[in-house]
């Protein structure tokens, strides 16, 4: 009852914000806040109480009566949507402001509200038809947000690619829901695990939702869309929108029966996405593109958790299945928080310097202390280092897989390599973020733009602080969030009710806080010591170079060179080399670029074949009526022969 009232208030406020978006920016921000707070409260209420809110109405939409439902799984995603939605809205107030973008600022606000509304509907709809409608609208809102800055060619190309990929996924979902309806006889969704004949439909759902989630071979749209969208849009796309794909996979693997191999496939795809996502990230020189590939990686980590949970559900192993799923679901929150934080941080850098190219940045720590420290906090979190939240969720996934190793059977063989590859992923992610922080924030500025950077204003800083606070809260006190996770797990698999909180979670809480306190104390002690002795500035030892320049620094490419070399078999870096040859060489150059291999080496050649064939077919249409009549005769004669020969 409370939940319904809260959600109704949220819906009313978001409708108001849609109206306010075009004329009244302040009013818009207030109404977005007014809609996210009640929805956050509703989600929290469902997660804490563990109940399920259902609402059926006689109101017909598209010939089907409305059926909304909020349970643990959807509430988890709704909470994330509310937090990131309001943080991004506040950020856009300064980042995409009226003066700099007179036309697209208002459009951006409008589509932002629409996106929040549609994603909320996707989470709430428990009717296949309405789910599809909300899904399609949500994808369209995403398109308009990505192409807000439609003047630039690459933005339009990215938006187009997003739209095409998104609709390919939606096509699979159309097939999924139609077949589901054909077999069950109703559009209504809900738990139907006992109907084994529905199991093969899972593959369609995995493909359709997988495109949106951006798991490895289906991620082609993700890097360019995330890199070219305005940063607050990248934040919500990466933080929440791709999680809708995860929501779909979790939702329908929970409601429908899954084929026996599904868990293994999901886990394998997850491992592949994790390792290859981070490998591609290491090869990038564009700050936001790099972050986008990290989304692929983190989606992989989430899917490892979900996949192992599905395996556990198939084998009836409650304890480690619940741990793996809780880890995956907590990583949904965590990735949503720290990736949005990182994208907003990257947006601040872009806002201050006008470039995303890491080889033009450098030394921003001094000019932008807030952005740099918040970005570094996000980097620690995404690398899965204690004491922040990334560590907690990966820890839960690890715990689940460690327990899986103890079970007899095939799970051992799968869990051990998965553990190792997850560890490799963590290490590579750390290397990647050392590279980012080192190249962007440390060292000397590589371009005048980086030299004259300025820190972001209060709105941008405030929204980043909110997200950072979320990261710290989950990192320090994961035990608080266990109840919510437990209820989400029970909503996924009703029989897993008596799974206790892992004892190590409490220890982990204490450890993380102790670690943070120790780090703070150490920093304070160093600070005091430094101040007591007074400052003395001196030049760094410069290896004998009398006049070092900013160009004599590690670049993004050279820093990651060794690791990208390991993955050259899939990254396929394109290199242009101009070696110094004479005794006194005039010029030398070295360029390296990592393409989007799946898109450029597989999809585009296939697309070229299709275009070539259709261009050939187009030559048949030339406008000469005589030949058209000839086509008619040939067609008629073919039909006549067909009926005369085979018709008998």
């Amino acid at each position, binding site marked *: 009852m409370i939940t319904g009232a809260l959600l109704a208030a949220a819906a009313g406020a978001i409708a108001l914000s849609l109206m306010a978006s075009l004329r009244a920016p302040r009013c818009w921000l207030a109404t977005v806040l007014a809609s996210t707070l009640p929805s956050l409260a509703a989600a929290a209420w469902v997660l804490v109480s563990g109940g399920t809110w259902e609402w059926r109405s006689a109101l017909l939409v598209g010939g089907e009566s409305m059926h909304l439902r909020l349970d643990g799984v959807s509430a988890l995603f709704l909470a994330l949507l509310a937090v990131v939605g309001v943080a991004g809205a506040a950020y856009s107030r300064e980042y995409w402001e009226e003066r700099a973008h007179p036309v697209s600022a208002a459009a951006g606000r409008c589509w932002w509200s629409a996106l929040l509304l549609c994603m909320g509907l996707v989470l709430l709809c428990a009717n296949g038809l309405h789910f599809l409608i909300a899904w399609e609208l949500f994808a369209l809102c995403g398109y308009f947000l990505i192409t807000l800055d439609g003047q630039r060619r690459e933005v339009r190309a990215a938006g187009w690619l997003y739209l095409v990929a998104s609709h390919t996924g939606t096509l699979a979902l159309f097939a999924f829901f139609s077949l589901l309806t054909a077999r069950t006889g109703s559009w209504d969704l809900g738990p139907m695990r006992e109907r084994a004949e529905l199991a093969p439909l899972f593959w369609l759902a995995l493909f359709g939702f997988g495109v949106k989630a951006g798991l490895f071979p289906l991620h082609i749209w993700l890097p360019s869309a995330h890199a070219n969208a305005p940063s607050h849009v990248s934040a919500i796309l990466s933080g929440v929108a791709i999680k809708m794909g995860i929501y779909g996979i979790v939702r329908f693997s929970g409601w429908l029966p899954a084929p026996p191999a599904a868990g293994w496939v999901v886990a394998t795809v997850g491992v592949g996405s994790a390792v290859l996502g981070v490998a591609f990230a290491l090869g990038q020189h564009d700050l936001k593109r790099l972050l986008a590939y990290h989304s692929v990686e983190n989606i992989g980590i989430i899917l490892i958790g979900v996949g192992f949970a599905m395996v556990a559900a198939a084998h009836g192993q409650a304890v480690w299945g619940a741990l793996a799923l809780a880890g995956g679901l907590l990583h949904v929150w965590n990735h949503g928080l720290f990736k949005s934080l990182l994208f907003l941080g990257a947006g601040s850098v872009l806002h201050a310097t006008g470039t995303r190219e890491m080889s033009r940045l450098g030394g921003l720590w001094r000019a932008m202390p807030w952005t740099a420290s918040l970005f570094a906090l996000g980097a620690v979190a995404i690398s899965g280092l204690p004491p922040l939240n990334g560590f907690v969720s990966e820890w839960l996934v690890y715990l689940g897989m460690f327990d899986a190793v103890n079970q007899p059977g095939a799970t051992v063989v799968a869990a051990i390599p998965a553990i190792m590859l997850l560890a490799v992923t963590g290490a590579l992610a750390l290397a990647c973020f050392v590279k980012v922080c080192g190249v962007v924030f440390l060292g000397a500025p590589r371009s005048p733009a980086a030299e004259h950077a300025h820190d972001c204003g209060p709105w941008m800083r405030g929204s980043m602080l909110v997200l950072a606070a979320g990261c710290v809260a989950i990192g320090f006190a994961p035990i608080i969030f266990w109840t919510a996770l437990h209820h989400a797990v029970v909503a996924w698999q009703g029989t897993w009710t008596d799974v206790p909180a892992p004892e190590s979670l409490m220890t982990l809480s204490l450890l993380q806080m102790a670690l943070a306190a120790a780090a703070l104390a150490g920093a304070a002690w160093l600070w005091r010591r430094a101040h007591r002795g007074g400052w003395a500035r001196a030049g760094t030892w410069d290896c004998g170079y009398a006049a070092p320049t900013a160009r004599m620094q590690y670049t993004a490419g050279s820093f990651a060179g060794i690791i990208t070399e390991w993955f050259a078999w899939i990254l396929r870096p394109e290199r242009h080399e101009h070696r110094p040859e004479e005794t006194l060489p005039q010029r030398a150059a070295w360029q390296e670029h990592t393409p989007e291999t799946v898109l450029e080496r597989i999809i585009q050649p296939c697309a070229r074949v299709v275009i070539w064939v259709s261009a050939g077919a187009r030559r048949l249409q*030339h*406008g*000469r*009526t*005589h030949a058209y*009549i000839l086509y008619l*005769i040939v067609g008629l004669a073919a039909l006549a022969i067909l009926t*005369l020969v085979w018709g008998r």
Partner: protein
Amino acid sequence: MNDLLNLLIGLAMGLNLVALGTSRLPSLIRIAALQGMVLGIMPLVMEHELRVMLLAVAVATVSMKGLVIPALLRRAMRTANIDRDLDPLIGFLPSLLLGAAGMIGAVVLARRLPLRPEHHESLLVAGALASVLAGLLLLIGRSKAISQVCGYLILENGIYLFGLLLIHSTPLLVEGGILLDLTVAVFVIGIIVDRIQRAFDSLDTRKLTVLRE
């Protein structure tokens, strides 16, 4: 009775070949008119007793197909003031050969079709198929708009022959309606031809390819 009918159909089929072989626009129009008149008297031959309605339709067909439509076409030809040569896309000899092959094919096909016993003896189906084929050949193989109208007329004659198969079950009023449609169509085309000539200074339909998109 049947022999007379077959003779008339054979005449129409022969006219098809003449139409394919002719190289002058006025003679093409004349042939189409003649074929229309031959077709017009066929209902009289097929029916045993003479009815007023039947007579009226026969008279109307003959006058429309034999007099009114050719007159319209000749007028269009005169006002457009075009070259009387036919400008073929498919040469006259190849069209003749194709027409003859189509005729033989039509006869063979008509024998293989599952027809009612009373139609087995008559050449109606074969003649209809041959006329349709000849009309289509003219449509494909001639480039002037007026010659295409003639092809269309011959094609329509073929369809009319098919219609004669059902003479006992189709009210003649329907035939009359079709005839009226045809006349109006030719009338309209006559005007369009004039307009095309004025706008483009040519009636060559090969040049009308811009509207393909």
